[in-house]
């Protein structure tokens, strides 16, 4: 609430641009703990302007993107009666997580040229590289379909609430199977489909505590980690046997 008040104070100050975004986030980072079950980030802000709101349809688009990773999409085909991977397409970069929320259908508040330039909608953030497969389009479509089904790619049209053409807010739900890294939140302000302002902020997503310690150990002291895992296994096996021996006596 305090943040909202300070935002309102900021609004009163004179500004140079016609319309500008002032932003707040409910949390600065996402900590993955042992009981992590996904996270919800509240993105809220205000539009600062020094004159009366100009004419034209107002659009507010909020995107949250996970780190980009290269990947391979494979397609199965029937060969000799069994289904095997035949063709594959390398995807140059695709975010591990991507959510795009807007106050109205993207087609109404965003021109295709602006979408292409700013890479806002999901098809624009999945980039494919040169391939010898003819229908490479269907591979990137499959990638989007699978990730949308898993809740990793979300198109949330109408999820941004705008009140009095000034205040806006939306909630982005992040699933529990998040990849670590620096997430990027972007907010676009559009008038009649043209981007008039944008704002960008990083949200670090990282493992903490026990999770962090185990992850580091597994990657930096692999031998020790392996021996530790085995010791736990042997000890557990012996304990169970000893415990059952006692019960039977």
């Amino acid at each position, binding site marked *: 609430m305090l943040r909202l008040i300070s935002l309102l104070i900021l609004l009163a100050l004179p500004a140079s641009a016609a319309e500008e975004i002032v932003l707040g986030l409910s949390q600065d980072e996402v900590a*993955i*703990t*042992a*009981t*992590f*079950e*996904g996270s919800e980030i509240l993105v809220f802000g205000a539009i600062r302007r020094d004159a009366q709101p100009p004419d034209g349809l107002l659009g507010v688009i909020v995107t949250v993107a996970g780190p980009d*990773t*290269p*990947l*391979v*999409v*494979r*397609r*199965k085909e*029937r060969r000799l*009666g*069994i*289904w*095997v*991977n035949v063709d594959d397409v390398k995807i140059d970069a695709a975010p591990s997580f991507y959510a795009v929320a807007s106050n109205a259908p993207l087609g109404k508040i965003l021109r295709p040229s602006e979408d292409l330039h700013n890479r806002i909608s999901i098809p624009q953030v999945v980039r494919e590289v040169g391939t010898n497969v003819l229908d490479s389009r269907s*591979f990137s479509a*499959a*990638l989007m*379909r*699978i*990730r949308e089904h898993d809740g990793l790619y979300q198109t949330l049209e109408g999820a941004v609430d705008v009140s009095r053409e000034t205040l806006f807010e939306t909630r982005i739900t992040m699933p*529990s*199977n*998040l*990849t*670590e890294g620096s997430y990027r939140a972007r907010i676009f302000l559009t008038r009649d489909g043209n981007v008039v302002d944008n704002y960008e902020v990083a949200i670090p997503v990282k*493992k903490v505590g*026990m*999770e*962090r310690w*185990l*992850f580091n150990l*597994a*990657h930096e002291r*692999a*031998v020790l*980690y*392996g*021996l*530790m*895992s*085995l010791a*736990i*296994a*042997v000890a*557990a*096996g*012996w*304990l*169970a*046997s*000893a415990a*059952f*021996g006692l019960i039977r006596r």
Partner: protein
Amino acid sequence: MQIYLPIAEISVNVFLLFGLGGLVGILSGMFGVGGGFLMTPLLFFIGIPPAVAVATGSNQIVASSVSGLLAHLKRKTVDLRMGSVLLVGGLLGAAMGIAIFNHLRALGQVDLLVQLCYVIFLGTIGALMFIESVRALQRAKKPGARKTRRKHGWVSTLPFKMKFRVSGLYISVIPPLAVGFFVGILAGIMGVGGGFIMVPAMIYLLGMPTKVVIGTSLFQIIFVATFTTLLHAITNETVDVVLALFLLIGGVIGAQFGTRIGLKMKAEQLRVLLAILVLAVCFKLGLDLLIKPAEVYSIATGGV
């Protein structure tokens, strides 16, 4: 209750993991199989990445096998000498199997190879075991049926004979070494302990008594699984200790129950049940290959 797994990078239900571990543990204790051929596909099914599932599965097998082996040691149903001979062959075979696996991964299509291996070996072994043990059950029902002594034929002509007192055998070390080696290769490729191949091989090829086979198989599996776990932890860094912990708590308890159930049952009944289980897994995996998958596309991340 959900828990986030640090290496698998996914959040799963704790009780689901206990249940999976317990189920596989019971089977492990009953049949002397590590349960890897069940655990690995089950972990895939709940969404654990394949590399993590294979590596963590082998760690879990160590735990349930130790638990089961200790129960068998108390009953003196372990042929340590036979187990050691099998183990020598097994470790050599596992190293070879992992080399083959890595070579094929470089060529691609390793998933297909693993699946085909499962279907072929589970199918063959399951069918043979099923037929044999049903016949044995029928024989046992007829009163006065004579017990046929198993003949070893050419096996008995091989040199380097050794006395295996617990098994009541006096045979050459070459067949057990070869069995261990062959099972080791498959274990390396399929990412399992190899018990489901080892158990029938010991019964039908080496002619060991069923009661001794299970404890001996567990003894050998512990070392092969330890070897593969370490190798996975060091080269791929894919052992998830949190996942393993929850699986093995269920697993070790299950193994104790399984061992007791197994000792109360007749050897032929055990074999029929194991055969049915093996055939069921084979059938499921075979269907996956034959039926058009719901999603023909799949995503692979990382440097594949």
